[in-house]
Every structure is written in C-alpha cells, then in structure tokens.
C-alpha cells in the first residue's frame, strides 16, 4: 500500500470571510512535489482548494507559500524530503489573502512599478550595445529574480513598514542601476536613496535565506548602498 501523508492547509473563503485549517490525506507517489499533491487534492478530493501554479519547474514564481513553517516554492519541494507525515501549508505571511493560498501581489507590483524598472536606451538599435562580461556579471544574480515574492513576504521590515520597497524590488533596482547599458542608472539610484528604499534595509537577511533562486537580495542591497555612497562622494547624487 502506498504511504499516506496528511496535509493541514490553512484556508480562507473571501465570500464568508472565514478561515480554517482543513486536513487532507492522500497517497504519496515517489518524487511527488507539494504542488502535485495540491493538484491531486483539487482533481480527486476537494475542487474548492485554491493556489497559484504555472510552470511547475521553479521558473515562473507562482507557487511561493509556507510549507512546514518555511517559505518556499511548492513545485520544487518534494513531499518525501520534508521528512514529516503531516505537512502544514499556509499562504505567504504578511500579504493579504484572497483565497486559501492565493495572496494579493498588487501592492508588491505597485512598488516594483514605482522604481520604473526598465532599461532606457535612446541609441538606435541597428546592432547590439556592446557589454563586457564583467559588466554583465554585475547583474547576473539580480536578473535571475522570478518575482515570486518569497523575500518580500519574509522581510521583517516590509511587515512593519508599508512604505518600504522590500528586497525583491530593491534587487530589481540593483539590476537596473548596475546595467551599464541603462541611461537611467542614476535616476534608479535616486529613487531608492532613502529609508523607504535601500537605506531602510537592516540586513536581517531573511530574504537571502528564503530566495529560491539563490540571489542573495541583502547583498544586492549592500551593492546599491555602496553605489549611492560612491555617487554621493562624487557629487552625483
């Protein structure tokens, strides 16, 4: 007989404004991920359970949630590797829950938009802009960000200060402030040169602990701070 596991899932119904913990026991399949287990519940046990999903390969950033007290992606977490027969699942903390494990990311995206995260280049693009490997390496980590909001939810500062941009948005700021092709590098630095931005970071580094892509947002924020200081010394800011 297949081994069974029990999922204790924190649920929320917006129409009833009610939350509760629901238990589901399912058969464990070798290699089964938490995301597969959740789909198994929807397709065969209880179709009312809600969560986000898409790539199931840890690249789209949809399925960040809390699994046995740890913030991670459901799609790259194997049930058997958790080492418990009872698995507790909750939505990301400190974000408004819309339904069960689905949280509101609009406020997060508004912060992302607020730093104007795009590369500005007014040169004609008849060929590519040249970029050295060293220069590209400066943004190698930040461009890996999948905007899964794990770090945003984990950061103790975003929890207490609604105006703080948070680690993911500041990682995007690092990406555009250090890309030597971007004509808006200084503007981006100015946008995060306050306590709502990079100067607000207290380097608790919860972001770096939870990032599923190994980006180390706390280090990216340090790089921004150093750049701000350098620009200030040069009288550019």
């Amino acid at each position, binding site marked *: 007989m297949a081994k069974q596991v029990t999922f204790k899932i924190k649920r929320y119904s917006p129409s009833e404004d009610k939350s509760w913990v629901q238990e589901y026991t399912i058969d464990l399949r070798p290699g089964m991920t938490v995301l597969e287990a959740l789909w198994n519940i929807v397709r065969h046990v209880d179709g009312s359970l809600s969560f986000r999903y898409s790539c199931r390969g840890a690249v789209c950033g949809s399925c960040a949630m809390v699994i046995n007290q740890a913030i991670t992606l459901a799609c790259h977490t194997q049930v058997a590797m958790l080492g418990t027969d009872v698995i507790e699942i909750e939505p990301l903390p400190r974000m408004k829950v819309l339904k069960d494990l689905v949280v509101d990311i609009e406020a997060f995206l508004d912060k992302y938009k607020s730093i104007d995260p795009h590369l500005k*280049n007014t040169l004609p693009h008849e060929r590519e802009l040249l970029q050295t490997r060293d220069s590209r390496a400066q943004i190698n980590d930040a461009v890996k960000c999948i905007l899964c909001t794990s770090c945003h939810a984990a950061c103790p500062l975003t929890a207490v200060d609604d105006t703080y941009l948070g680690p993911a948005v500041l990682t995007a700021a690092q990406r555009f402030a250090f890309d030597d092709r971007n004509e808006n590098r200084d503007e981006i630095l100015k946008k995060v040169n306050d306590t709502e931005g990079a100067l607000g970071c207290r380097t608790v580094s919860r972001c770096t602990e939870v990032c599923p892509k190994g980006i180390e947002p706390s280090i990216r924020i340090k790089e921004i701070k150093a750049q701000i200081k350098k620009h200030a010394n040069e009288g550019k800011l």
Partner: protein
Amino acid sequence: MQHDLLIVGSGLSGMRAAIEARQRGVECAVLSMVYPIRSHSVAAQGGINAALNNATDKSNEDSWEQHAFDTVKGSDFLADQDAVCVLTEQAIPRVYEMESWGTPFSRLASGRICQRPFGGGAHARTCYAEDRTGHNLLHTLFQQCLALDIPFYQEWYALDLVIEDNRCAGLVAMNMLDGKVAAIGAKAIILAAGGAGRVFAQSTNALINSGSGIAMAYQAGIPLKDMEFIQFHPTTLYGTNILITEGARGEGGYLFNNKGERFMAEYAASAMELAPRDIVARSIVTEIKAGRGFENAYVHLDLTHLGAERITERLPGIHEIALRFAGVDITREPMPVQPGQHYTMGGIDCDATCKTDVAGVYACGECSCVSVHGANRLGGNSLLETLVFGKIAGDSAADFLGTGPTLSGQALLNQRSKDREASLVRRFSTRGDVTVGQVYDDLRTAMFQNVGVYREAESLQLACDHIRKLKRQYTQVGLTSQTREFNLELITALELEGMLDLAQTIAEGALRRQESRGSHARNDYQTRDDENWLHHTLATPGEDGPVFGKKDVDLSRWEPQERKY
C-alpha cells in the same frame, strides 16, 4: 467593458503585439489567466535564432537565407517558405530590439551577444542568456509594457470568442478571482494564448498550456491547421519531464545508451546529438524499445566532460533543475532523460500577416499556425516566432483599426455571455460519478500512449475511439466544489472541454495522414509522400467531430528534397 484591441495571452507574443499596437497609438488591453511573468515563455531555456554572425568567421558566414533553408528542411518541407523568410529576415532586428530594451544576453569576449549551435542549424546562430533566455526576454517585455502603461486583465480566463457576420465582436471571459462572467467588446482580437502541450501526459509544458485559446478559436469556427504535428523534445528529465535544453547538446553534451554507446552515430552520423528534435527523439525511443535504455525508460545525457566551470557558466539553470528535481549533479554524473511532448506545431490557421479568416481576429505565437515550423520546429525558432509574429500581429491589428471599423455584434456578445453563465450554473449542478480529474488523466495518458513519437493506424484508431468515449463521459462530469472563487476544478473542467476537441483534431488528423513527415512518424507509412501529402491539414468543427480539408504549402523558394543529417 470594451476595447479597440484585446489581446488574449500575456506571453512573449501577446506582450510584443501589445507594445506594437500601443506604439501605433492603438487603445488595447491584454487578458491572461496568469500574471504576465508566469506565462510559459518564461520556461524557454536554450535561446533564440538569428543570423547575427557573432560566433562565425568570415570563411563561414551565416545568413538569414541559410537560416530560412535550415528551417524549411527542418520542417520536412511543410513550412510555408515565404513566411519562413519573414521569420528569419526579421529575426535580426527583433533580437537587436530586445537587447536594446534591456534583455541581458550572455556576452562574448568581444562584448557581442553569445550564440551557440542548435539542432538542424548550419551555424552557431542561437542567441542565448545562459539557459534562461525565455525568462530574460519575458521579463524585458513585461518591463517595457509597464513603461508603456499597458493595462492587463490578470487571472481572467477567456471562454468564448464571439463572431458575428464573420467579424470580431468580442470576448466572453471569467474573472478567476470571483468566478463572474463578463462580456468584453472588441473591434479586434489577437489570440496569443500558447500551445496545447497538456493534452499529452509527459509534457514539458507549464500546467496552464491546455491549448484553451486554440480550442476557443476552433469552437468559434476558425479552422485549425496541421494539428497532427506535435513535437516531442528528446531530452526531458526522467520523472518530471522538465525540459533539459537542446543547449546542453549544443554545448557538447553526449547521449549514451546502457551499453555506453553514443547511439546517435547510428541515426545521424554527421549531425550526431545535434540532429533535429524529431530525429533525436525517435532515436532515443528506438534505443529504449530495443532494450538499450535504463530501467526501460530513459537514456543518459552526459555533460561531465565539459567540466564544472563551463556547465555552471553556460547551463546554470539545468544544473539547478537536475539537482533539485532528480538529485543529480550534472558536473559529476550523467542525467536521465527521455522524450516528452514539447511543442504544438499546428494551431489557429493564419497567414504571414497573422490574419485569420475572420475580420479583426489575428493569431500569433504557439497557438497559431502561420506555418513557419511545418512538420518539425527547429530549436530556437519558437522564441523567435513569438517576437517576429507578435510584432506583425500588432501591426496588422493596427492597420485594420486604422480603416475605422465600428464595434459590432454587441447584442450577440451579451447573449453569449448569458448563455455561458447558464452553462456554468448547469455545470455546478451536474451530479456525475466521474470527476474532472479522472477524464483529464485518462485523456492525457491515452494521447501519449497512442499518438506519441511513433504512430500507426491501430493505436491511432484506438485513441480516436477513446476520445469520443471521453467526450460522452465529459457531459456527465460533476464538480466536487460549489464555490466560484478561484475554482481550479472549474478551470480544469473548462480546459478539459477544449482539450478533448483538440485531441480529436490531433488524433484524427494523425490517422488521416498516411505518411511519415517530421514529427509525424507512422510505423505503417514510413516514408514521406509528397505526391499525396505535401499540403497542410485544416480541421473545422462539424456535427460529429472535426471536418478535414487541405491547404497548399508555399514552395516558392526551394524544391523539396530528401532530409538527411
């Protein structure tokens, strides 16, 4: 709610179309069942083809014409050659444009964009960003869309394309968060909703790739083209079928059977591991069937000889995937791979300007069939198609809107919205013994087993009969849930209805086509038959399943020849 232009799908092709339309001054919005950055384009790994000549020398120059020929040969001569020339000529400005918009490509020592060899290509022309090319391109377009303030309907599911008097009227869609149905009037609609990979078990595709946009067009009466041509990617990770990029072989990876032989020498002596995908996939299946696989299920893809430094520099994503999902460190040991469904070559019938037969309705990206991939797509050409034809679709819609069409068919649109609401109510009150999950799993397994890499009349007939049975069963499927809010069981049920229709066009189309061409390999008709089958298949919905027709292939540039590598 109404728009001049509504784009369904927020992957690369949808967002590229939106940018083009917006830059032309068109009022437009993008509707998608996911946030744009969750779209399946994000998962593309290996790269995008363009004859930039960054990695070639003077004695061995690449050209867009050579790229076009490779694409046509790769397609087993079923691609439309005039459209392929558009694809490969426009490749160059589209890649430079993405770079200028910020896409972080990998760089050569010269500072230019890196290019690597891919299957079926005469030169190293696949531009890449490590093995995260799709991710880097998608985030770039999302950022450009934000800068242009393009509005998105996020987590909205498209239900019905409404057409009156052969003109676009609009879309009936459901807000997934509250489950409410709405009518959105539109003078023009661009369908950019992705492929149908999930119709098959063992697919590399995202869970959202049910082909819902293709099915919606079909149900509205727009013909589908070449649906029997399904690409099986040779190397998907055993267990999860997550894609292992062709770039792994492009960087020099070897395929080994259980005897330690580089078996591709038997099947494509000169191209070896870099033969086109259909050929490599068939070779792997043949090896496994002959008992030369591992656990009767997979072969080995070995990169260890490349060295840890090159692997972590060029293929960091694959390194992470193999470690995380299979527990294999590819710098030290080979990884287990098997073919899996990967790409839908067929799709909504449209021409090289992305026009369908319906005024104001356009299609681009994987849901469309222009056709630039014919019977087999070359790796690196799908990202390219999204950008080239995304732009063209945006342009064509802008041209159409420039002629001053008025919003029409709104009474019908509102009626269809009410009909849809009634059908959802019925769906919730159906008390059947069969769950959505049972029919869903059953269909996907049957398709992979019987309409897979190798096909023959007997198994195809089995599949066709089985799909008809499942379609009857589907009418009795009940839901275990009653809530409308973010109801994934309901979404699966809606997707499944379309998947059953698409499966029918795929399986019946495959049964009809009595030849082997590209990805369509028949055990009972092993050769290509240009005399009888050098034409596109068209499928339109009839009273009792699809009605088939045909369409000419553009052969204006090259004569069909035998395809050898």
